[in-house]
Each structure stands twice: as C-alpha cells, then as structure tokens.
C-alpha cells in the first residue's frame, strides 16, 4: 500500500489494497443516511499495517487495513477475534503497546496526520478530538476515586472547566449518559455501581471532552442483553443529537446491523468489506463476511422434541438456595425452582446475570445442596443423600462444562492428560486402553490429535473448549450440564462449539442442562426453555413455542434485545 496516494478528493471511499482482494464496495447513499457531501472525512486510515513482535516471533495484526469515518456517521468495525479490530482502535488513538510497530500506512484525523505526532500533541487529541469507550467497565475505572471526580478529570485536563464548575459539569454529563440520580452517583465509587451503570459512567467520561469521534471498543460485550440494548440505544441517541461520529467495534454482526450506518468487516488485518449496513448484511460480497453472518446466531430452526423414554432423568422440585451476602444479608439466589429433564432432552435455563442460573447448575452437579424442602432426583435417586461410592457413581454420570475453558483446565497439564484425568480418577481401564480412549474422544470433539501434547496456554479458546468437552465426555456421562459453554468464545468458534454439542448429543443420546444468557443461543440448542429472573421461573415451554409467542413481558424484552432481531433479514 505504499504507492497509494492519499488524495483528499477520493478519500471518501476506502482504497483497494491488493489485486487479489475483491473490489471495494462503492455504494452511494440512497437514503441520505450518511452524507457524502463533505469532501474531507473526519478520520481516514489507509493501508495501515501493524506488526507485533514478541519472543515467539512476529504477528502481522493489521495488513493494509482501511477505515473512513465521516462527520456524524456511525461505522461498525466487525471481525472475529484476532482480526485486528482492537489494534486498529489503539493505533488511531496512538496507544499501541511497545511491542507493536507501524510498518506502513497513514492515519489522518481532521486533516492532521496522527502517525509520528509527538505524544504531547496526541494527548491534546485524546479525549478532546477522539474519545474511547473501553470494553471492560470493571477494569477501566479507578476503584479508589469517586465517579464524579473521574468524569471531571477529563474536563480539567482539557481546561474545559475547573473547581466546583467541573464537579457540576460532571453531574450534568452523568445525567446525559442516562444515569438516574447523578448527584448521588457522582459520589459513589465504582464497586457500588452495576456493570451497566459503570459503562454509562465511562460514556460520560468519553462525552466530557465533547469529542468529534467516539471509538467504542466492544462497549457492551460484558453486559446483559437487555442492558446492552439500552446502552447502545442511548449511545445512538447521543451521537445523533450531538453529531458525534462513532466507530463501534464489535464481533457481533447483529449489533453492527442494528446500530451502524456503515459496516466495515476486518479479517486477518485486512478490510474485506465496506458498505452500508443493510447491504453488507443482505448481500455480503466477501466469503468471510458470509462466514461471520452464518456464525451469528441467526434464525436457526428450533430443534424437534426428542421421543421421551420412560421416567425423566432429572426431576428438580422446589429448589431454594439462600446465600449470606455482605453485612450478613440473606441473598436469595434461587427461589422455588422446579423442572424436569427427559432422557435425550436439552433444557435451556435462560436469564440475565444474577438470575440464579449458575446456582441451579451447581445444585444439579451437587457442588451445592439445596436448602430444606427442595430436592433433586437423578434417575429416581435423591442426590443430596448419596455418599461415598454412590456419589462417585453420580459424579461419573453427571459432568459439567464450564463457561471459560481457559480457567477450568490446569495450565500445567497437556491436553491428553487433561482428557485422561477423569478416566484415571474413576479407574476406567488400564493405561493403554485409556490412551486409546483419549484418542477416540479427541476425534469425537474434532480436536486434531497433533494438539494433544499441547498445554492449554498453547491452544486457542475454541480448542480449549473442545478439550473441556472431551474431558466431560470421557467417563461416559448421562447428563451434561453446560454453564454458558460458548459465551466466552467469538461468534465463529461459538457456532462450531454449539454445533459440536448438538451433534454429540444426538449421537450419544445425552441429556443436557444448558445455561445461557442469550435466548438466541438457547433457541439453537434447546428443546425446552425455562426463563429465570431473580431466582424464579418466569416462563417455561417448548423452545419453538416461547420464540413464537412469549407470554411474559420479560421474555418479550429478552427476545427484543437479541442483537440483529430488528434489522436482520432472513439469510436463506
């Protein structure tokens, strides 16, 4: 991309960066949704290549990436993990880590080239010209400083307000960011706020410098779907009102389609698609965009109900669990929940965080015992009563798949040892037989045998989850409890893992309790769905039924909050 001149007259479309790439989509705006009249874009990134070099070698994170943002426009940058989205965002604000080096390309913001600009000038642009809303609201606020002071800090460093006035302005900003009782919130410390409130505080900080461009790096991926929808609604409204341009970085094409006027798709550091949101979603030109679209939980058909054979495998009755919270306050995590799981059936437990889903999962695997009155029958036997040998038999028949495959695997063990561990613990077979079984299990979860000697740190998240699934299948369980097994994975890997789980279930005739915060995922995998809220069952029924005609208003809110439900057209 070195030879590409950066003429301002033709800078309204991203440049074509290689003969093998498809031509860039140059689509005129039909609805006037984004103005192409302004000759000078607000931000223009051309042919940007960034390399990370570390001990294990160099990685080309960006390979001639292009991005153009006009004033007042919302552009979504979409890509799977490792596509270079976050590197692009960091490069624009000049905050690449020391291990990164810009090989070529240019970044022009408001007519000024940012690459090679001294740090002092960059600081003047950060916050004032370009503001960033970070991905993790918990890690991005200083835990020992009140919220109001943190908002006022941006005002102070840019000389926009000082003293008492800065404090008052901070309260106004918190109100603008949609926080109730901003005077109270301003005096709170981050730990006193919920995740959604913290994200709004970060939005207030981003708005403080009245920036021309806001870069939102996965601003809601750590939040519940309904909160996510509210925050994104609010952000869109704010940008419309103030005319601020927004770059929305996301792995979710659904979010992008709902929120952005234009979508830029990144893959392996290259811009593979760039066009109006509707066009990219309905008529993707590039195969990689299509892969992302297929990966996003789309209108997959609900699964047919399996034939019930005899007694249900699991009967849970009146489950209640009360924890002692801070200040000795009783926290009711689960409140009178009951359900059954038939043999070969998948029951999805859906709800937002703190709905009590994980507590139910831990009750079913008997990490916890329900409070008085509740009981769980597994194959007709009360699991609270099992001891010693019976407990071991129960453990063998019920296996748990964790949310984060990285933390549930001992980092010092190689994949083969991890898969073998339950076989050894349950005394299933001699060494050669166990090794043969490990190889079979690896094939079953489509884990290449060459990876069996690697440790979790040397595997990708998707591969780690395959190891975890193989490990759970090793003792030949009857019931799999899956605690959001795909939520920590990116869309493409998520689709693969969910596909693997459904395939395995049909093949092995397993029963499955599937915990999810995402109704779209539940719909794809479950036969029946139970919706939980504040520890109680809100709605229960066949998956297809709940999606067609939800009776409870809360279920409807959850359904409406699924990203992409607003604008996603049918793909087939």
């Amino acid at each position, binding site marked *: 991309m070195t030879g590409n001149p950066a003429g301002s007259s033709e800078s309204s479309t991203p440049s074509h960066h290689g003969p093998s790439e498809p031509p860039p989509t140059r689509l005129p705006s039909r609805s006037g949704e984004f103005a192409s009249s302004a000759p000078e874009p607000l931000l223009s990134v051309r042919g940007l290549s960034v390399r990370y070099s570390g001990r294990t070698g160099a990685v080309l994170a960006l390979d001639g990436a292009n991005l153009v943002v006009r004033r007042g426009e919302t552009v979504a940058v979409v890509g799977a993990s490792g596509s270079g989205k976050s590197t692009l965002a960091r490069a624009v604000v000049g905050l690449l880590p020391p291990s990164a080096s810009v090989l070529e390309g240019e970044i022009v913001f408001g007519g000024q080239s940012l690459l090679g600009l001294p740090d002092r000038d960059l600081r003047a642009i950060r916050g004032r010209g370009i503001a960033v809303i970070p991905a993790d609201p918990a890690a991005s606020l200083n835990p020992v400083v009140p919220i109001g002071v943190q908002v006022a800090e941006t005002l102070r460093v840019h000389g926009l307000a000082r003293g008492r006035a800065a404090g008052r302005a901070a309260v106004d900003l918190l109100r603008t960011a949609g926080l109730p009782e901003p005077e109270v919130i301003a005096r709170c410390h981050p730990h006193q706020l919920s995740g959604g409130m913290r994200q709004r505080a970060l939005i207030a900080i981003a708005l403080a410098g009245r920036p021309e461009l806001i870069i939102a790096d996965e601003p809601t991926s750590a939040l519940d779907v309904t909160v996510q929808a509210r925050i994104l609604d609010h952000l869109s409204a704010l940008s419309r009102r103030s005319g601020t341009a927004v770059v929305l970085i996301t792995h979710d094409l659904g979010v992008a389609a709902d929120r952005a006027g234009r979508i830029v798709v990144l893959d392996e550091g290259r811009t593979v698609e760039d066009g109006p949101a509707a066009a990219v979603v309905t008529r993707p030109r590039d195969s990689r965009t299509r892969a992302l679209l297929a990966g996003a939980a789309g209108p997959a058909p609900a699964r047919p109900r399996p034939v019930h054979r005899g007694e249900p495998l699991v009967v849970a009755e009146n489950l209640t669990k009360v924890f002692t919270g801070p200040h000795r306050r009783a926290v009711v995590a689960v409140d009178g929940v009951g359900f059954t799981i038939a043999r070969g059936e998948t029951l999805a437990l859906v709800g937002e965080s703190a709905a009590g889903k994980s507590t139910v999962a831990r009750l079913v695997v008997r*990490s916890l015992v329900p409070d008085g009155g509740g009981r769980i029958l597994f194959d007709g036997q009360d699991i609270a009563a099992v001891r010693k040998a019976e407990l071991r038999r129960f*453990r063998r028949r019920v*296996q748990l798949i*964790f949310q984060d495959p990285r*933390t*549930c695997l001992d*980092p010092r063990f190689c994949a083969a040892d991890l898969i073998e561990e339950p076989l050894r*613990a349950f005394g299933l077979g001699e060494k050669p037989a166990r090794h043969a079984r490990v190889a079979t299990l690896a094939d079953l979860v489509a884990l290449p045998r060459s990876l069996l000697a690697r440790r979790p740190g040397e595997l990708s998240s998707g591969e780690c989850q395959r190891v975890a699934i193989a*490990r759970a299948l090793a*003792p030949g369980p009857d019931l799999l409890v899956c605690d959001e097994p795909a939520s920590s994975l990116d869309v493409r890997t998520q689709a693969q893992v969910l596909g693997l789980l459904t395939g395995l279930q049909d093949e092995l005739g397993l029963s499955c309790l599937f915990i999810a915060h995402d109704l779209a995922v539940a719909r794809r995998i479950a036969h029946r769905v139970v919706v939980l809220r504040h520890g109680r069952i809100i709605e229960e029924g066949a998956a297809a039924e709940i999606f067609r005609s939800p009776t409870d208003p809360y279920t409807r809110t959850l359904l409406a909050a699924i990203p992409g439900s607003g604008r996603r057209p049918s793909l087939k």
Partner: protein
Amino acid sequence: MTLPRRPGLLLAVLTVLALAVCVLMPDVVAPHPPDAIDPAAILRPPGAGHLFGTDQLGRDLFSRVVHSARAALLVAVGAIALSLAGGAVVGLASGFAGGWLDGLFMRAADVLLTFPPLLLALGVVAVLGSSATNVAVAVGFANLAPFARLVRAQVLHLRGRPYVHAATLSGVSPPAILFRHIVPNAAEPVVVVALVSLGAAMLASSSLSFLGFGPRPPATDWGTLAAAGRDYLGSAWWLTTFPSLAVVVTVLAATTFARALRKGRS
C-alpha cells in the same frame, strides 16, 4: 539467550559458578591449606603472595574464606530448606483443611511474625547451644511463618480456581487434587521467594556466627572469620572486610538470580 545483554545477571551467574567451585573443591581454588601457620608472615596486608592478606597466626585469609564457603552456604541453604519444608506442611494443612486447624496454625504464625527474625533466631540458638546445625535450625525456624503464610495464600487462591472444581467433579480424590493440581501450581512462586530469602538467611546465619553462636574452632564460616578479625579492626582491616565482602557478594548474587527468575515467570 539474554544473558550477554544483562551484565548484572551475567555477573551473578559467574559468582554462583565460582561459589559452586569453592564449595565442591576448595583445595583446587585455595593456594594454601586453611590452617597452615606461617610465623614468618603474620598480619600481612593483601598482596601478591596472599591475595586477602594473612591473620595473626600467618594463615592465608583467601584460603580460609574459600574453605569456609561450604559451611556458610550449607547453613543458609539448610535454613531455607527447613523453613520451606516446615512452611509448606503448615501452609498446605492450613489452607486445605481450614477450620480450627487453620486458625491454630495462623495464630501461631502471627505470634512468630511479631518477633524480628534475628531476635527469634538468637533466642532459639541460645536455647539449643551453638553449632552450625543449630544456627541453621534457628534461622530456618525464624523464617518459617512467612513461608507458611505464602503457601496457605497460594492454596486458598488455587482452591477457588475452576480447574480444581472441575477436578472434583471429575472424581479426583482430595489428596490427588492437593498433590496433582495445587502443589505443582503453588510451587513456582514459593521457590522464587525461597531464593530471595536465601540472601537474608545467609546474612542472619553469618550474624549469629559473628556473635559466637556459629561453628566452634577450628571449623569456620564467614561470620566466625569476621568475628575473629574484630580484635584487629584498627591494624588489619582485611581480616573483617574480606569475609564480610564474601557474604555481601553471595547475597547480591542470590537476589539478582532470584529476581531474574521471578521476572522470567511473569
């Protein structure tokens, strides 16, 4: 490797190698036997014939320092090995069992921690009597509480890890979880801290020897050598300076080495 780019670490590695040679085959390094008396060369300053000078009996100080290396290092390493082993047992039991045992062990550790370690070691060695072994026991005991705390903290941290929970659900028995999952994962930081403490143990044991609780003559270590030279501080500075320098250099090398290890870990 990164060694040539880090002169401090290179120096530390060379020092450790040199010390190893002194410990393993002192006769090769030392030009004279450590107890060879030479009435013709009494209290000679450092020079060509005697690198570190000679003492009041004409013994070559360099040879004496080289021959004392084994005793000095053995005491320090023994002391650390003792606090490591004791701390590991107490910490593992405390962290894994919890309950009243944890309370008992940790309150005992609190009591130990209220005393300055050197004072505690002094008390112990005063009770046990002076010998190289007793110095090691005393220093080891004085440093036991921090290790017990560290190991317990590691165990508590690791016990909450999802992979330990996963192992329980996979039918792994509690002892197997302790020794297959918790101990190996806890070991690394503990070993690094042990190396860092090696310097402190060396200082403490030398101090005890200097105060007269160390090995009885004719056995020597660096602390007793420095103590013997104390009477000649005005006329023969080298008698106290070189044994003390040996302690300083060893402590520096051990800490540099440990710090490099710790950095390499993160």
